[in-house]
Structure formats: structure tokens, C-alpha cells
């Protein structure tokens, strides 16, 4: 596969690239000498954890250094033109016309006050490649190729009037508008649901193939990059770990770091089963309907039980009502009808009416550790407050309890006791969030997408920690997630939700063996696998027009 590009021209050649970032009044290296060679028509996948420098290299391929960073050494040669020494005007002339960029969040990258097609035609008209009408016709053709519904009409909508997956495809179309030689995809599907992701992936792959465009595909998801890339380059902390053609890389990674990345998905917690002695569920959600003020029903007759010491995973796309269910259980959103039972007794619908002990029972761990921890409060106070509030601990007893909790989440108390959240890494912050929940000594914890903002290795560590804590402390978890790999590794029971309804529920082993409910089936089969042929196989099975949202029954 690699030989395919041996004869092709080199399009982009980066040699010994070094980039520095300005922090604390000194320049610190971010990229420490990376080489990259990209041939015409080749798709290279850049993978690595956050902070590995993937996006920085992606931007550097356009000759661009973000604010507060500078290219300190090395050369970037694009089609015979040296970008590091080129003038700003020359580099700007390349961007949009010969090098295009597709950002992670299409919703944030489109200007909300202009129609999509006007933003699409801006580049070709600006570079005088096409007249406005020609460019519009071309846009419609591209929309059709990317299988957007109503290609003739969709461009005349504003960005907020189309769905996330469609917007991401519209952005890919926009990148294609000048038929560039190189497109940089910066995590284009990370923010999307699996069912939407698959159609964006298919669209991107098709269009890159059709126009023989070279691409740099940046992602942290190995399974995704396996579908897209011809070559994979693994980065760690600004340095290259290894590079190889996709198939070779997947079959026989050379470096330990790469192997550890590959092994991440292997974690599996043994499945527990419901107690058979007829004991009561810890939390029981019974026929709950809920709506936000004045809105339509978000939850429709939701019922499920969570038994002590078990993990119930609630899965579904965004907007399916997973988090709303959690808000009903915690009492932030009183249900319209139905009730939440805790150990056989109904909980008051509003959290304000609940007793301190009832509040203590159910704790929550949040998705974004950044917003879940107060940046201006010391770690010791964040963890200590629940212990002080519920347990009435003071002075040395409180300090001892905080140390105990920090030990429990595998952070060194001496080092972290008096730090502030912004000084911590993402994984460490999430651990502090866990410690805060544990400090209340609950029996039940709601984990709201706790790993989705983390790198795979870090997420793995968090899952293992949660699993260990469950064994040691007998906790029950409600695990809200859209990542089925997480479900596979940690869940005991699975609840599948769609449009505010529970479509299927049962023990994990039953849920992962056919026959499924059609929606469960769609969810399961949309999860990318580490096989480069997976996408093609799925597309064949479903038919080209029948993927993603289109396959929604």
C-alpha cells in the first residue's frame, strides 16, 4: 500500500520542524524536530494524545503558527515553495485555494449570520477561480457528492438550520471548493455521535478519493484513522514515535507506546448480575416523563432499575435524554410524572426538598472536569468540603480524610493537597472529581460521560480506577456514555435510549449478542473497528444511501 505513493510527487515535505510556545516568559519547545513527507493523493493520519502537537503540525503545514507560538527551526516545503521564509501574503494566497482546513467544530467555524453557500463561494470568488454563479453550481454538485439532503437547497440555509453532521460535511465541501491539493482535517468527527460520524467519514473518504486530494487527518481515535489513512504517524509530546503504512501499523506496531495505544481497548471488567434474593433496587426510575419549561417532552415513560454494586450504562445519541434522566434522578429537573425511588422509598422530586442524607446518597461526576472544579478553590477544599459538610469532620481528622481520598484516587497527597485545579492535567482533574464524589461516602454515583473528554490512555486509567473503587466500596454506577467501547469494558447492564424513550435494556452479554432492536443494532454497527476495511464493509452492508441518520428507522 505504501508503494502506491513511491512514484507520486512529493507534495509536502516537512524537515526537522521545531515549534516553540511562549509561556511563563520563556519559549518552550512544543514540537521537537518532526519530519513528514506527504505525496500527492496520500492521506496521512496523525495520532497521539492531546498535547502531542498534532494540531500544531497541522497548522504548520499551512505555514501558520498560532498566537503565542513560533516556528523556530526546520523547513516546510509545499509543492516546491518554502513556507517558513515565504511572506505572509504568499502564504495567505495558498490557504483556501491550495491548502484547506476542516476544523473540529463546524458549528463554531461557520459564521452564523451568513448562508452556508455564501461562505462556500467566498474562497473561489476571492481567488477569481470561479464566478459566483459557477461556484454556487459547483457547491451544489459537491453537496450532492457528499450526500447532503436537498443539495440544491441546503446551501441557502443558515448554519444553525442544519444538523451537526450535515454542517461538518458542508465544511468539507467548502474545503473542496477550490479543489485544493491538500486538506487538513483536524478531528472532524470527534464531536459527533457514532451514527453521524460514520456518514461524515464515508463522505470524506469518497471525496478525497474522487479528487485525488492529499490529506492530513488528525485524530486521537485509532479506529477512525484506520479507515481514513494510507499512512499513520504516531506522535508523543512533540516527537515522532513511529510511522508506517496503516495495515503494517495496525498489525505490528514497533514501539511500546504505540502498542499501549493499541491495547487500550482491551480493558474488561467481569460482568456482575442482579441479586436473585429479591432485594430492592438501590435506585429505581419509574415511568418518568420530563420536559424543560415550556418545551416538548424530553423523557417519555423512562423506567429502569439500578441494583447495589452494579454498573448500568445508559447509551444513546446526543439529545436522546441520557443526561436529562440524570438530572431527574439528582432532582435538578423535577419530573412531570413518575417517580424516583431510592431503596424502596420515593425521593422528593426537587433536590431542595431532599434531606442531607438523601443528597449524600447520589453523587455525580461530570464530563468536563474543567467546569466541574472551581478553578479558584484548593484541591484540599474541593475534596474536603463534602467530608466536612456531611461528615462534620474538622481539623486534623478532615486533613486525614482528604489524604485518604487522594490516596484512593492514586494521587500523591503531599503534592496535590494545596494545588489549584488549573495546575492539573485533564486526567488528574477527573480524578479529583471522583474524589469529591467519594468524599460524600455515597452508594450511588452518576458518571456523565466521564471519559469522553480524555485521551484513550487516560480514560483507560479512569475506568480502571472506577472499577477498582466499585469493588472496594460497593458503589453502584449509572454510566452515561455514547461510547460503546466504554460500555463493553465496564457495564453490567445496558439501557439504550432514543428520542427520550428506552428502546431496549438488559444485561450486557444479552445486549451485545443478536438479535437487537434495530436502533441498538445501528448504534453497535456504527462503532468504528480497528480494521481498515470496516468502513467499506459497513457501507456495502447498508448501501451507500442508507448510512447514519438515513438509516434511522
Amino acid at each position, binding site marked *: 500500500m505504501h508503494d502506491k505513493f513511491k512514484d507520486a510527487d512529493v507534495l509536502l515535505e516537512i524537515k526537522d520542524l521545531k515549534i516553540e510556545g511562549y509561556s511563563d516568559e520563556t519559549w518552550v519547545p512544543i514540537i521537537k524536530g518532526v519530519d513528514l513527507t506527504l505525496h500527492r493523493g496520500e492521506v496521512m493520519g496523525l495520532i497521539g494524545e492531546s498535547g502531542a502537537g498534532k494540531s500544531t503540525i497541522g497548522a504548520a503545514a499551512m505555514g501558520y503558527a498560532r498566537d503565542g507560538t513560533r516556528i523556530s527551526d526546520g523547513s516546510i516545503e509545499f509543492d516546491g515553495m518554502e513556507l517558513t521564509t515565504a511572506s505572509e501574503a504568499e502564504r495567505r494566497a495558498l490557504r483556501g485555494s491550495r491548502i484547506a482546513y476542516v476544523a473540529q467544530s463546524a458549528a463554531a467555524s461557520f459564521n452564523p449570520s451568513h448562508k452556508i453557500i455564501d461562505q462556500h463561494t467566498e474562497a473561489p470568488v476571492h481567488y477569481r477561480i470561479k464566478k459566483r454563479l459557477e461556484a454556487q453550481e459547483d457547491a451544489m454538485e459537491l453537496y450532492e457528492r457528499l450526500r447532503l439532503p436537498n443539495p440544491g437547497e441546503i446551501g441557502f440555509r443558515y448554519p444553525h438550520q442544519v444538523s451537526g453532521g450535515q454542517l461538518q460535511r458542508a465544511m468539507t465541501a467548502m474545503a473542496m471548493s477550490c479543489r485544493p491539493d491538500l486538506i487538513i482535517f483536524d478531528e472532524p468527527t470527534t464531536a459527533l455521535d457514532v451514527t453521524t460520524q460514520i456518514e461524515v467519514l464515508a463522505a470524506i473518504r469518497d471525496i478525497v478519493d474522487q479528487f485525488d486530494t492529499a490529506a492530513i487527518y488528525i485524530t486521537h481515535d485509532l479506529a477512525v484513522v484506520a479507515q481514513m489513512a494510507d499512512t499513520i504517524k504516531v506522535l508523543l509530546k512533540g516527537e515522532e514515535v513511529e510511522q508506517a503504512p496503516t495495515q503494517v501499523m495496525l498489525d505490528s506496531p514497533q514501539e511500546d507506546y504505540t502498542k499501549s495505544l493499541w491495547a487500550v481497548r482491551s480493558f474488561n471488567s467481569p460482568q456482575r448480575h442482579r441479586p436473585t434474593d429479591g432485594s430492592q433496587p438501590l435506585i429505581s426510575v419509574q415511568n418518568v416523563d420530563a420536559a424543560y419549561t415550556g418545551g416538548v417532552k424530553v423523557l417519555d415513560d423512562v423506567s429502569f432499575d439500578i441494583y447495589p454494586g452494579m454498573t448500568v450504562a445508559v447509551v444513546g445519541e446526543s439529545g436522546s435524554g441520557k443526561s436529562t434522566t440524570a438530572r431527574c434522578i439528582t432532582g*435538578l429537573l423535577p419530573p412531570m410524572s413518575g417517580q424516583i425511588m431510592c431503596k424502596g422509598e420515593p425521593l422528593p422530586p426537587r*433536590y431542595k426538598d431532599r434531606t442531607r442524607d438523601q*443528597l449524600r446518597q447520589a453523587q*455525580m461526576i461530570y464530563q468536563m472536569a474543567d467546569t*466541574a*472544579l*472551581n478553578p*479558584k*478553590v484548593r484541591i484540599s477544599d474541593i475534596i474536603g468540603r463534602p467530608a466536612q459538610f456531611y461528615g462534620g469532620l474538622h481539623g486534623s481528622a478532615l486533613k486525614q480524610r482528604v489524604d485518604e481520598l487522594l490516596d484512593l484516587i492514586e494521587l500523591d497527597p503531599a503534592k496535590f493537597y494545596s494545588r489549584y485545579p488549573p495546575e492539573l492535567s485533564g486526567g488528574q482533574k477527573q480524578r479529583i472529581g471522583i474524589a469529591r464524589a467519594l468524599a460524600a461516602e455515597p452508594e450511588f454515583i452518576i458518571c456523565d460521560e466521564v471519559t469522553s473528554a480524555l485521551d484513550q490512555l487516560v480514560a483507560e486509567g479512569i475506568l480502571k480506577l472506577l472499577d477498582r473503587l466499585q469493588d472496594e466500596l460497593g458503589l453502584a454506577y449509572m454510566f452515561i456514555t455514547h461510547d460503546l467501547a466504554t460500555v463493553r469494558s465496564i457495564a453490567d447492564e445496558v439501557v439504550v435510549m432514543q428520542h427520550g424513550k428506552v428502546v431496549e435494556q438488559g444485561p450486557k452479554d444479552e445486549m451485545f449478542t443478536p438479535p437487537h432492536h434495530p436502533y441498538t443494532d445501528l448504534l453497535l454497527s456504527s462503532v468504528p473497528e480497528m480494521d481498515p476495511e470496516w468502513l467499506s464493509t459497513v457501507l456495502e452492508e447498508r448501501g451507500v444511501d442508507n448510512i447514519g441518520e438515513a438509516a434511522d428507522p
Partner: protein
Amino acid sequence: MSSFVIIYYTALIAASCLAAYYKQRNVFMLLFSLTLVSFVLGIIGGAGALRFVATASFILALAAGTSYAFREFLILISKPGLAKELRTAPLTAAFGMFVIFTYAIAGIFAPWIAPHGEAEIIGQAFAPPDENMLLGADQLGRDMFSRIIYGARNSVGLALVATLLAFFMGALAGLLAAVKGGWFDQLMGRVADVIMSIPSLIFALLMLSIFGTGLHVIVVVVAIIYSPRVFRLTRAVAGNIVVMDYIEAAKLRGEKDWYLIRREILPNATAPLIAEFGLEFCFVFLLIAGLSFLGLGIQPPTADWGSMVRENATLISFGDITPLIPAAAIALLTVAVNFVVDWMLFRTSGLKEQ
């Protein structure tokens, strides 16, 4: 060609050449553009204009030098964390801090610094400056310089107290409105709207005519006029914070509103509030000066910059600059505070990017 002109040009060109030789691009640009400007001005205005330009540049350079030295001094005496922040301060902010520092010293130690009492009549009305009276005498023969020093204490002190009270009321109402929401938020919002809909000076004049012109009345009236602005800012800032997950976590823990305000919200809202404090202080200060100028503020014989302008206003028709000195004192403080606030605003907005 006087010797002054020759020395002036020689010095400028020599300095430009030196700067160019040592590759000090910015310094060279500054010096050489000054040379060119002086050249044009010299042709049009003669030696007088050149003298003016030279004096102005000298004063500017002196201010810059003072600011630089003051900043370095502050960096050296402060703790490492604060020193790091201070190092990011531009010269204008350092200048502002220096001016505020000077005013504070003048206000606090007024009785020791001022050579005469604020109400002490020691000379003839409108006496010109002499070795006894640095800036001459006012319309009753009181020492102008002493009154300016005492004015720092009275005007600035009063404005400070009024601003603090406005902040206390506004911030408390804003935080409570953000945390409680619902009808309390609505009520507070409408009350703020009502106060803001009345022109502030007219409202102040009305209140002061009704309740008399005591110091406590001025403080309370001015605080009421300015608290809605603080309320709106605090509510907006706190409104962004109360939607954070950590507030939700604290609410679910069963924490009371007062704890939320004190421990969770306030630490995150201090930076914009301090910046706003500086800005509001200027407005309050100007309003009080304005009231004094109209005769409804601080009452004589207490020295106050606003009323000093009014008392000496007759001198303006004789081309005397005496009434402008207290006005300049007001202007300088306002500009200085704004320099510092600008820097603080820049810093807080910079923090958001992280």
C-alpha cells in the same frame, strides 16, 4: 539661530545616530520622528515652539522614567506571584499606580504635608505665588497648595467611601439575583432599571435639596445612583459562573446560597469587579466634583477640588490658570486610575483565553 536651537538639534541627531548604530529600531524611530517634527515646527513657530516641544518631550521622558523605576521598585518589593503579574504591566499602568500612590500619600498625611490649614486665611485674596504660598492664594486668601493637599483627602476619601458603598449594595444584590433567580432577580432588575432611568445629576440634585448636603447624604445618594451599574455587571459575571458544573455540584450537596456566593462565585468574579471598581471610582469622583462645583457637594470651608474650581472661576477671565490646578488634579487622577484599570481589564480578558 540661538545656541538653544543648535544644541537641541545636535543632541537629537546624535541620539538618533547612536540609536541607529546600536540597532535600537524603536528608539531610533521615536527620536528621528521627533527630529523631523521639530524641524517642521521650528520653521513655522521658531525657537519658542521648539522650546515647547523640548519641554513636553522632557516631561514625557521624565514620566516614563519615573514609571519604569516605580514598576521595578514594586517588582522588587512584592512577593514572587505578584511580581510576575507586575512585570506584565505596561508603563502607563505603572504611571497610574505612581500617581495613585502619590495621591494616597498626600491624602493620608495631609496635615503634615500641607504648610497651612485648609481654612486658614494667611494672605490677600488671589495673591500671586510667593515663597510662602507655592500656588498663590484663593478668593479668601487661603493657601492654594494646602487646600489642594487637603482636597486629596476630602474629595478622594468621599469618592472612595461612596464607591465602596455602591459596590457593597450592587454586588450583593447582583450575586443574590444570579443565585436565586426567579422573582427576586426580576424585582432587583426592575429596581435597577428605575434608578438608571433617572438622569443621575438631576436625581442627585433633587435628593440633596430634599435631605440637605451632609456628607453621609452625599455618600448614600451617590452610592444609590451608581449601584445599579455594579448590580448589572455582577449579575452578568455571576450569571456565567452559576451555570458551571461546580456550582451545580455544590447545590446538589445542599449548600446554602450564602456559601455559594462567598466560596464558589466571589473568588471567580473578583477580577472583573476590581476593574469595574476603578472605573466606577472615576465616575463617582467626577459626580461628586460636579456636585461640589454646583455648590451641593462638600460644603465650605472644607477643601474640595470641585468647589475650588468654582470658587476661583472668576480668575479664568483674567487668563490665570489657578482654577485649572484643582481641575488638573481631578483629570490626572481619573486618567491614572483608567490606566491601571485598562491593564487589569487586559489581564482578566487574557486569563479567559487560557
